[in-house]
Every structure is written in C-alpha cells, then in structure tokens.
C-alpha cells in the first residue's frame, strides 16, 4: 500500500470498504478549492480519524462521502467508490437509497440535528417505514434493540420523548442508534462528541467503537481533537487548508509525525501525564482562495525552504502505509512525543495567599448551584477549577468576579471581604481583579476598535490618558503578540485567537493582580490554545499575576496550573497540588475523570 491508491483501486478495496480518489470540492460562484486532491481508503471494521483545525475542510470531506455538499459548494472532481460503484456518479434516486442504508452520517450537533417536533421513536423508525422494511412491530422492535445497543432505555416512555427532553449524551447516542439501525457499511461521524463532557464522550466513543467492530462497519471520524483520535482511530489523516498533510497508522503518526504541521499540532496539545511548555502555531489557517502557492503550510512552517513555495508537494511515503505531503520529509529529523515537557509545578512552593473563598454558596433564584466551596489563591499562582458541565465551576468564577451576586459566604481579597457585585465593590477592587470570558466572539464590542477596547480600562481607572494611553495600548498589544497595525481594526475583523488576545490585553490594561479566566481557550483551535497558554504562563512569571483558571480539560490543567480544585455538582470533591491530585487521586470521581479523559502518548 505504499503506491498511490489510485492505480489499482478495485484490488485494494475489500468488500465493504470505501475508497476516495482525487476528491475535490469548490465554491459554486468562484473557481476556488475548498478541498482538493483527497485520496483516502476506509477498510472494513476500521476507524479512520480525519483531524484538522477550523478551515481545514474536514467536514466538507466527510459529507462528500455521501455525495452531499452544503449550499455554496459543489463536489467538482474525484470518485467515492463503494464496492466498485462511484457514489458521486450514481443517479440521484440511488444516492438517496444509499444514504442511510449503506453510508450513514452522525451529525456534529445532534441537539439541532434531531427534529424538534417529532418524537424520538418516530424518527428512529422513519427510514424503515419509508422504505417499507418489515412490519410496524418489527420496525419498532428494531428501534428498541438499537437503543439498547447504545445503552439507552427503550421503553415506550423513552420512545415518546422529544429531543429536548434528552441530555446531550443521550441525544448523541440516539443519533448513533439511528445511524446504525439500517446496518450501514460505512459511517461518517462529524465531530460527534464536541461539547460533551469527558465521561459522556468516553461512553459515546466506546459505543461507537464497539458497534463498528461488531457490525464490521468502517468509519470516518471527523474531529479537531487529536487526543480523541489517539484513543479511537486505527489510522489518522491530518488535514490542513483543504489537503491531507499526513496519513498513516495512528501509532506511526503519533510516534513519528513527519509533516511539520502535524508536529506543530502535537507541540500545541497538553498531556495528562506531564506538564508541557505548550507552543502555538503562529498566523492563521488560510481561507479558501487565500491559500499560499506551493506547500499550503509554507507560510507558517519552521522548516520552510524556497523549494516549498514552488509547487504543491505530493504525498511522499515515509514508511509502509505512512505518507506526508512535505518535500523535506527525510531532512527534518526524528521527533519525540515527550518534546516540550517541563517539570510539574512544585507542590512545596511557599504560598502567599492573595484571594480566598470561604464557604461559598451560590444560588440562581431558589436553586442552589454551589455548596460550601472553600479554596484560596496565592500570589503568582494558577489555581484551576475543573469539572464537567453543571459542576458550578463557571458560577464560582462569576461570583468571585462580581458578575453574579446571589451568593453567601465570603470572598476575601488581601484579607478584606469583597462586596457581592462588581458595582458595589470599590473601583480599586474592580481594577485589581479582572475577568476574561470564554467566548471572545461575544466578549468584545464589535463596534469598537482595538484601541478603544484596550484603553477604556485605563481611562476608567485613571491609569493613563491621551498619548500616554495610546503608547501603553501599543505596548500591551506587543506583549500579547498583536501587530500594531491592528490598532484601528474593529474587533469583528479579528480571528478568535486574536480576539482572545485583545480580551487579555484589556484585562492587563487595568494592571490587575488577579485574573479570572473562564474557559478562555475552549472556543479556540488547539494550536491557538497553545499560544494563549504560553502567553498566560509568561504573564504569570513576569508580572506575578495570580489566575483562577476555569476549565473542563484536565490535560490543560497539568500544563498551566499549580493547584487544582475538582468540582462535582457544585461541591469540591478533591483539591491539592496538580501533581498530587493527578498522579495519586484519592477520590473515585477524580479517578474516573482522569481515566475517561483521552490521552496522547
């Protein structure tokens, strides 16, 4: 299988597999490639992980396997061969017959992908009913069996529910059951676990892997999450800017990544087992139509030479079954998964407490969300609040930041008790504790320029004004690695990562002592997350800023924080230094979280 697959497609696809040859998708209006030159083989019973960041075209490839493209794009070239038939050339009626029955699709966001006004049971039997498969009873029984397979209740009451009456994990498993019901040969999963908690994610992934194996189904698993791929895929295809950059068996790709992009991506993800100095990839993923000539990654690559920009490199064989789209593949040396690891934060460091939370109870109306939470934060320290959705981690951070005021207990800053809401705190307290939000698309006023956004806290707190303020804005922008050219940009022109840097600069403009960071990297691509984490680490060291870091990602905790509070249903279940908690967890819940989190290496 070292030879390009397109030579002898028929012989290389065993019954049930799927072969993609030279697939290309373009925009409808303009002759611009969204994805091009995609060659991929799915063998029966195997899970292929298709990994890429936003803008890589991974979802486009996924839906193309069902001869489907979203409005504004069309499949312009290539073949998708299923048992020798080209899906892209089939008449429309046969394509429809084939969808669902032979190639099934599991959507990214099942909550919006299940019809809100049709009961679950009806949606499950719909396809069989339309095709006239079996009797009403046999169809209903098949639906019940399908639900049992994915570990859901299958009584009448459950079948009569609507999608909004299920939890996120349940909805996703209903979608899986629906996909498996017609016993397809190929399964396309489009980021099916995005937004799920790790334990739910683990359950869904296990279900999927089990079903694929027992039904002999081959699956294309589209995702942005390398750690998930490391756990479930047999082979991995890494996509960048509309092309496959590297393709190979999972172990080979993680042990010996051969494309500089794959390496950069692996450098940017945190590990559960050891702290790392994370690195981001500078620049942005180019959009279709704005991609560089030659190697698409050449403008962001550390190994770039002139020849890279001459022409698009072909996929070059590295080892049997392992290919990379890089002309320097033999010259860039070996790579080690443990590159970049650093010592964990010292658990015995002397702590000088600056902020303490004592007996915090938080309410929303009459409902109590947080119960008797106590912890503290020392100068120059990062404390992580970790938990799944509903654990109350964000609620705690909002109460500390004064954004939510229905709470009792005490929050002390340098020993003084803080008022409940930001408005009733002193200007000095407001200045010294800054809050950074999860979603940078919502936290910056899109009408204001970067300069206006960053200088506002300076004016408000009387730190600087006029020319002096502008100079300080420029300094801060440099510090968060934003070019001074963006000074007069409106926030709506920036990418997610750039926006989050502006949000950090706005917080820094107030010269805070404590920053409350609420999931500030969860809306960002991993390579951007890497660079933001590196930035925060630098700020902590240089300025001695303390941070309360809210996250659901345990691996990230290991790399960024010194102490961790594990939360469950509004209570702290385990707390301590990161090394102690993660290497020798005492509580069952912590152990489960750790074992359910996907691992790399």
């Amino acid at each position, binding site marked *: 299988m070292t030879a390009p697959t397109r030579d002898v497609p028929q012989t290389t696809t065993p019954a049930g597999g799927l072969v993609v040859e030279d697939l290309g998708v373009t925009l409808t209006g303009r002759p611009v490639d969204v994805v091009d030159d995609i060659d991929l083989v799915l063998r029966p019973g195997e899970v292929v992980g298709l990994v890429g960041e936003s803008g890589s075209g991974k979802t486009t490839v996924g839906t193309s396997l069902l001869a489907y493209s979203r409005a504004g794009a069309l499949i312009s070239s290539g073949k998708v061969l299923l048992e020798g038939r080209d899906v892209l050339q089939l008449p429309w009626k046969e394509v429809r017959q084939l969808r669902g029955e032979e190639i099934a699709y599991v959507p990214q966001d099942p909550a919006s992908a299940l019809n809100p006004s049709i009961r679950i049971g009806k949606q499950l039997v719909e396809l069989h009913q339309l095709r006239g498969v079996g009797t009403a009873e046999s169809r209903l029984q098949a639906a019940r069996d399908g639900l049992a397979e994915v570990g859901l209740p299958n009584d009448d009451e459950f079948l009569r529910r609507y999608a909004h009456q299920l939890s996120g994990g349940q909805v996703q498993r209903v979608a899986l059951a629906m996909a498996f019901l017609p016993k397809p040969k190929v399964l396309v999963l489009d980021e099916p676990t995005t937004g799920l908690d790790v334990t739910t994610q683990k359950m869904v992934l296990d279900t999927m892997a089990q079903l694929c194996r027992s039904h002999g189904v081959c699956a294309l698993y589209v995702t942005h999450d390398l750690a998930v791929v490391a756990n479930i895929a047999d082979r991995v295809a890494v996509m960048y800017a509309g092309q496959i950059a590297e393709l190979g068996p999972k172990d080979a790709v993680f042990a010996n990544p051969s494309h500089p992009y794959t390496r950069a991506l692996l450098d940017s993800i945190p590990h559960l087992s050891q702290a790392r100095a994370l690195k981001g990839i500078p620049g942005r993923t180019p959009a279709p139509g704005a991609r560089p000539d030659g190697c698409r990654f050449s403008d962001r690559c550390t190994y770039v030479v002139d020849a890279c920009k001459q022409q698009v490199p072909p996929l070059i064989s590295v080892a049997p079954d392992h290919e990379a789209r890089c002309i320097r593949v033999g010259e860039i040396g070996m790579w080690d998964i443990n590159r970049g690891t650093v010592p964990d934060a010292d658990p015995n460091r002397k702590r000088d407490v600056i902020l303490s939370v004592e007996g915090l109870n938080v309410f929303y109306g009459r409902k109590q969300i947080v119960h008797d939470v106590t912890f503290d934060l020392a100068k120059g320290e990062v404390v992580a609040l970790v938990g799944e959705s509903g654990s109350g981690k964000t609620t705690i951070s909002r109460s500390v930041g004064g954004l939510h005021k229905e709470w009792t207990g005490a929050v002390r800053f340098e020993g003084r008790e803080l008022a409940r809401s*930001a408005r009733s705190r002193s200007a000095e307290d407001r200045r010294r504790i800054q809050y950074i939000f*999860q979603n940078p698309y919502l936290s910056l006023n899109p009408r204001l320029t970067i300069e206006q956004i960053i200088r506002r806290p300076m004016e408000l707190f009387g730190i600087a004004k006029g020319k002096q303020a502008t100079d300080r804005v420029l300094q801060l922008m440099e510090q968060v690695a934003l070019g001074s050219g963006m000074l007069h940009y409106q926030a709506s022109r920036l990418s997610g990562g750039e926006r989050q840097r502006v949000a950090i600069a706005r917080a820094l403009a107030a010269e805070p002592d404590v920053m409350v960071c609420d999931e500030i990297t969860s809306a960002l691509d991993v390579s951007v997350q890497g660079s933001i984490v590196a930035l925060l680490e630098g700020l902590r060291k240089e300025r001695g800023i303390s941070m309360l870091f809210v996250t659901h990602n345990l691996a990230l905790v290991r790399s960024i924080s010194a102490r961790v509070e594990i939360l469950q249903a509004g209570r702290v279940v385990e707390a301590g230094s990161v090394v102690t908690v993660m290497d020798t967890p005492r509580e069952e819940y912590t152990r489960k979280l750790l074992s359910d989190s996907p691992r790399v290496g």
Partner: protein
Amino acid sequence: MSTTASLPSTPSFLGRAMKQKRFVFGFTVTLLVIAFAVLAPLVAPYGEEETAGPPYSKGGLFGTDYLGQDVLSRLMHGGQGVLLISVLATLLGMVLGILIGVVAAYAGGWWDEVLMRLNDVLLAFPQILLALVVLTALQNPAAWVIIVLVGVSHAPRVARVSRGVALGIVSRDFVVAAEALGEKRSRVIVAEVLPNMIGPLLAEAGLRLTYSIGVVAALGFLGFAADPGAANWGQMMNENRLGLQTQPWAVLAPVLMIAIFTIATNLMADGLAQLSQRGD
C-alpha cells in the same frame, strides 16, 4: 467549524448598504419624492387654494378637482405637510420606543415585566384606532396632535422590536464586561448597547416611516386633517372620491404618489433589514 471568518475589511453599515440594489433604489426614490414635496411648491403653476377652472375639468396635466383647483398644483403643494408630519411622527415613535425597549431589556426583572405589560395594552389598539379614539373629543386637530398620535401609536411597536434586539445584546459578555469594570449604566447603554442596534433600528425606522405615511394619509382620507382647506395627499383622495368616474386623476395622482413613496421606503427598510441580519 467550517471556514474561518477572516474578512479583509468591514466597511460601515451605510457603506455596505450603498452596495445593495434594493436599498439604493428605495433610497433614491424616497429622496426624489421628498425633493418633489419640498421643491415643487416653488414652481407650481397655481397657488394652493387657487381656482383654475370649472370643477372636474380637463385643463392642465391632471385636470381640476371638485372645487376647480388645479390637481397638479394641489399635488405639488400637498406633499410637504404629509411628509413632514410622517417624518416627525416616525422620529417621535422611534425615540419613545427605543427608550422603552432598551430600558426594559437592560433593567430586566420587574421593570421589564411592567413596561412590556403596559406596552401590550397599547399594542391592542390598531394604529389608526388609537388616533381615532382621541380625535373623537377634538375638533380640527392641530398638526402637532396628529404627530403625537401617530408617534405614540408607533412607540409600542418600536419598543417591542428594540427590546428584542437589545435582549440579544445585553446578555452578551462585552456588556457584562463593561458592568464588571463599573461603567455607568447610561454609558453602558449609549456606548455598548445602542451602537450594536443601529442596523435593525434603521430598518425599523424605514418601516415605521412607511406606516407613518399610511396612517397620516389615512387620517386625511377619513377627513380628519389638520387644515381642511389646505392641499394634502390624503385629503385630496377624500375630497375627490365622488369624481373618480369623471376625473380619476384628481384621486389617482395623490394615490400614486403615496404608493410610490411607501414602496420606496419599504424597499429601503427591507434592504437595511437584510443587511443587519446578514452582518455582524
């Protein structure tokens, strides 16, 4: 997770509007009608209440009306009043409505509940009814009464729209961030909330202008105009209705002017609405 949204540049809202065919067409025609209303009285062949010949005769471009006044001249004189009242009523309705809607959305809780409940009461009156009810007790209302009546009848509708738009903004983190910094509440509304409502509010203003013309002309048509003798597009339809068979232009000329103007303002409003939905 599709493609990165990295636009090279985003020009101002009106800048983008000027590139939209629908808006440009509506805007141009609106300006032309306004220009006609403002400038035409200067070049009208006859005075506003000057007799030009026998009633319902064929002289002049559109003939004469029920009193023998020149229809073309009446048409030229009759735009200003209608348009001025409509524009002022729209402004009044927008200001009142935005105030109510934004305060309700930003204050939330009881304020929101009470303001919107009262708003529902006003909404239960069809726009024309509100004006008619008040006119029952008045004889020959002054122009400002009509402006107030039409403006007030707009307010609850504008309030509902602007509350809806504002609700989507006040919950966003940049507003929360401004609160956390301790910005004054008035500044939060003026600097953070309102600028993000410009698109939808402009669209609403266009729509309100369309309806203003409709209501103001309708009041004239029903015979409740401020000044019974003066030329007024709405009133002209009423005065000459009986002559529709013999001298249709006396009615059709103002009808067509109003139709053209409302179509234009509506196209303009819809163009703005499309833009504000698409962008940001």
